[in-house]
């Protein structure tokens, strides 16, 4: 009868209130993006697509979107590739200093992004290189690598070594074994890692603000510079597009992977 007790009702009510707290601001951004007014926030005066049209006509915003998409995709590809290799080393081999190295690779999670931002920029300055797209890319790879590693490692632990050994005993070489056995079994984690690193890269602002230039803006940096004046329906519209994009992608990917996944070890 627990589900009907007073205590449980209070717990449920509390949880709902926390949800309201967390989601009201996000929902309001989406609602306000249809606000036709130029100034102020509420009350809304009808609904229009005016600001979305204005966004689509703004070259610098389109450019920022292109940058963000390319950056996120490249980050995901690089991070996931080197993350898989590292995860294989940690889970499938024994070697001296393993735990220390694992902690080192995970350490960017615990180092404040501000410090990462300053450090990489300082290093670049010492090398006398200008800020560039490459800086954003390598920076985002460092930011996302630990997450990929954690996700892939967790899955790899669950894949029994015997499958790989069986393949090898049947004559497959290391690459064939990986391609035919490990990779398919690992695929959900690889996709999750890639998606995670894409969204982290796509959404990141704290470190990116140190690395971006006027030519290499990402969407969050663009939003930041637009906020200097004040909040506007245009910013809300841009925010709404970002929210829809970064929220539906993982949901869709999760749905598709569940629908099509044939490998359930």
């Amino acid at each position: 009868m627990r589900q009907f007790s007073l205590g449980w009702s209070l717990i449920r009510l509390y949880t709902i209130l926390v949800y309201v707290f967390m989601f009201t601001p996000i929902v309001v951004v989406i609602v306000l993006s249809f606000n036709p007014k130029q100034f102020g926030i509420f009350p809304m005066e009808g609904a229009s697509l005016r600001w979305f049209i204005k966004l689509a006509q703004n070259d610098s915003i389109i450019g920022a979107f292109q940058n963000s998409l390319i950056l996120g995709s490249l980050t995901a590809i690089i991070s996931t590739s080197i993350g898989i290799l590292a995860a294989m080393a940690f889970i499938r081999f024994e070697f001296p200093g393993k735990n220390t190295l694992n902690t080192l690779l995970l350490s960017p999670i615990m180092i404040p992004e501000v410090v990462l931002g300053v450090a990489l920029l300082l290093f670049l300055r010492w090398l006398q290189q200008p800020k560039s797209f490459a800086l954003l890319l390598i920076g985002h790879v460092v930011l996302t690598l630990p997450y990929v590693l954690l996700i892939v490692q967790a899955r790899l632990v669950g894949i029994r070594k015997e499958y790989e050994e069986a393949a090898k005993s049947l004559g497959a070489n290391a690459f064939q074994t990986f391609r035919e056995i490990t990779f398919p079994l690992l695929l959900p984690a690889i996709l999750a890692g890639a998606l995670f690193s894409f969204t982290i890269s796509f959404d990141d602002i704290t470190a990116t603000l140190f690395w971006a230039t006027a030519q290499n803006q990402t969407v969050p940096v663009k939003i930041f510079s637009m906020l200097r004046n004040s909040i506007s329906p245009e910013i809300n519209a841009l925010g709404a597009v970002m929210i829809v994009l970064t929220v539906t992608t993982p949901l869709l990917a999760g749905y598709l992977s569940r629908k099509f996944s044939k490998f359930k070890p």
Partner: protein
Amino acid sequence: MKSDSWKPWALLAPSMSAVFLLLVIPVCFVIVYSFWLRAPSGADIPAFQFGNYAKFFEDFFYPKILIRTIRIAFETVFLCVVMGYIPAYFFYRSTTRYKQVFLLLIMLPFWVSFIIRTMSWINIMGDTGLINHFLLKIGLIETPISMLYNEFTVLMGLIMYLLPFMVLNIYVSLEGIDKSLLEAARCMGCTEWQAFREVTLPLSLPGVSAGCLLVFVLTAGTYLPPMILGGPGNDMIANLIFKRVIGTLDWPFGSAISVILLSLLFAIVWTYNRYLGINQIFKSFQGD
């Protein structure tokens, strides 16, 4: 299989070199730079002196910001525990088929950019924002209350950013509790509340403390909520770094402040690891 010993190193080579080249060496540069001098012309002069650190501690201006950062971080941790434990417990005990949906929902803010989550509070608490609009409409107030740009709004922004981390950490440790322990406690005559207090709560503490550490570290290193939702008196230490490095291009002093922030966090993480172990933190990211 002695001949295999090179293999893990080959596999690790790309990621290790990335982290060494792009993290370890740059952080060393920050430490080295923190001892350099800044010429009046703005050029950086290699040196070994503690002037940048002396400048930080010479009067109360900078230490006050450091103390404020620590205080705000503790406040955020406290609020996240208070707001996060009950929902995590709800997910853990809930038997509805919507449990997965609830869990997914609390993770959704992770996917929304930090800048959007931060600025979204302006829509809520601005002079023409949701709350003022509502209060005006029902006639409770006649002129809008000015609610933005203070420590409270900064805290709201921080909670919005960090609460999912806390919920996730607590939930993961709750899920790890052997449910037969609870049944045993109930069989022995414990009430629901006693069973929670004597079994569930103590066993979930590792998750709570992991969440606290994570929230503390992330709060202490962020500058966005104070920048967007705070007033002039709400700057935290990361804001100081941002202003020195991006604003005035004072690299040596900016580096020294970064080292101070890093040392503070290192001391906290080291102490935590010494007594509680750090690995719990990473569990929450691994999902299923």
